[in-house]
């Protein structure tokens, strides 16, 4: 690889707005340098800085053009953390002695069902606010032939396919090894691999979607509208946390010995969900306060 090619490759790592403003002169400067490890590290730090601070990417970016975007994306990220914690809660309840008690009715049954309904409401509200924004970003990406946006928006799809391959591959290996009776350590290893893969896929998907929306020029009106589903999502998230606390108290009364074994996990789940709800709440409040300041 020639020096020119290496410099061009490095430049591709910068956001497009930064490249539009500084690419030519920065290329010239890099061509005058020896591209040793310290220079490369320095340039990589500059790449990270350019992604983290798009406001310094030259006049193409107008600071404060869409003040709603950052809080709404922060709320979205908090929601995904909330969902992951919720899935951990589902994993704790699924295929457990709680199910039998829950089928008999009573407080545990109602706590579970109401929490599940509220979780559905959070999803619907998030989709109502988020899907129009993603669709407009996608349409722009196709219309303007923005490969960077298309790649970022395709990341959730790649992540899903990767998960299917990992999960399917693991099951295939187990079947080829001759059976479903795995030792405890083997089962734990598989569950760990699946869980870590799932978390990585979620992080990659969310990061890709957020970066794509940050780089696209989705109109401010959609973000303004998204404040309302955002506040509904946050309120429903708070109620879900309340529902899980109610479920925990009921589980402690109905199956004290079983619940004692799950207590630490339950507390961790509630703590993560409460924290995510707080972040989502601050983000929603921020988007409304921006509206009050600017209108």
């Amino acid at each position, binding site marked *: 690889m020639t020096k020119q090619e290496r410099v061009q490759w490095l430049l591709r790592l910068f956001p497009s707005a*930064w490249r539009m403003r500084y690419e030519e002169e920065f290329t010239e*400067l*890099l061509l005058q340098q020896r591209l040793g490890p310290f220079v490369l590290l*320095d340039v*990589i730090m500059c790449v990270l800085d*350019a992604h983290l601070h798009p406001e310094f990417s030259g006049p193409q970016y107008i600071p404060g053009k869409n003040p709603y975007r950052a809080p709404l994306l922060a709320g979205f990220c908090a929601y995904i953390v909330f969902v992951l914690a919720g899935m951990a809660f589902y994993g704790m309840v699924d295929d457990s002695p709680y199910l039998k008690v829950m089928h008999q009715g009573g407080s545990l049954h109602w706590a579970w069902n109401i929490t599940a309904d509220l979780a559905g409401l959070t999803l619907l509200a998030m989709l109502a606010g988020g899907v129009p924004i993603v669709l407009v970003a996608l349409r722009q990406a196709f219309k303007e032939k923005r490969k960077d946006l298309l790649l970022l928006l395709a990341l959730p799809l790649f992540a899903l396919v990767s998960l299917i391959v990992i999960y399917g591959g693991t099951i295939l290996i187990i079947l080829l090894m001759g059976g479903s009776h795995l030792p405890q350590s083997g089962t734990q290893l598989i569950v760990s691999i699946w869980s870590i893969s799932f978390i990585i896929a979620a992080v990659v998907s969310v990061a890709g979607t957020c970066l794509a929306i940050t780089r696209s020029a989705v109109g401010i009106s959609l973000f303004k509208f998204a404040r309302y589903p955002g506040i509904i999502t946050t309120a429903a998230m708070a109620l879900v946390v309340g529902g899980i606390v109610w479920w925990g108290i009921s589980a402690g009364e109905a199956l004290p010995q079983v619940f004692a074994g799950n207590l630490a996990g339950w507390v961790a789940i509630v703590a993560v969900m409460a924290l995510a709800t707080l972040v989502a709440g601050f983000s929603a409040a921020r988007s409304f306060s921006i509206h009050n300041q600017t209108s």
Partner: protein
Amino acid sequence: MPTFDLGLGRFSEPALLILVSLAGGAKHGYSMMEDITHISGVKLGPGTLYGAIARLEQRNLIEPLPSEDRRQPYRLTEAGREFLQMQLNNLEQFTTTGLRRLAAS
């Protein structure tokens, strides 16, 4: 106490060095790096240089000049000149105080 912190985080010190370099006349990136090494002994990396340039330009403290080739020269704006004067005055006061205290001790 005067510091190198221009509200630009880790780019404060490189930004001040760039401003001092441009106080000697308009320069493009490579010339700035050479000049800064010459006047301060600090060797700025290209990424750090452009991180600071982007911030200084956004704050209207420096501006690009028309260029005939791919190299982009920059110069101080009037606001940049005043800002640099203020920073250097602060540093001078700080240095004077430090030297006076050293002499008295």
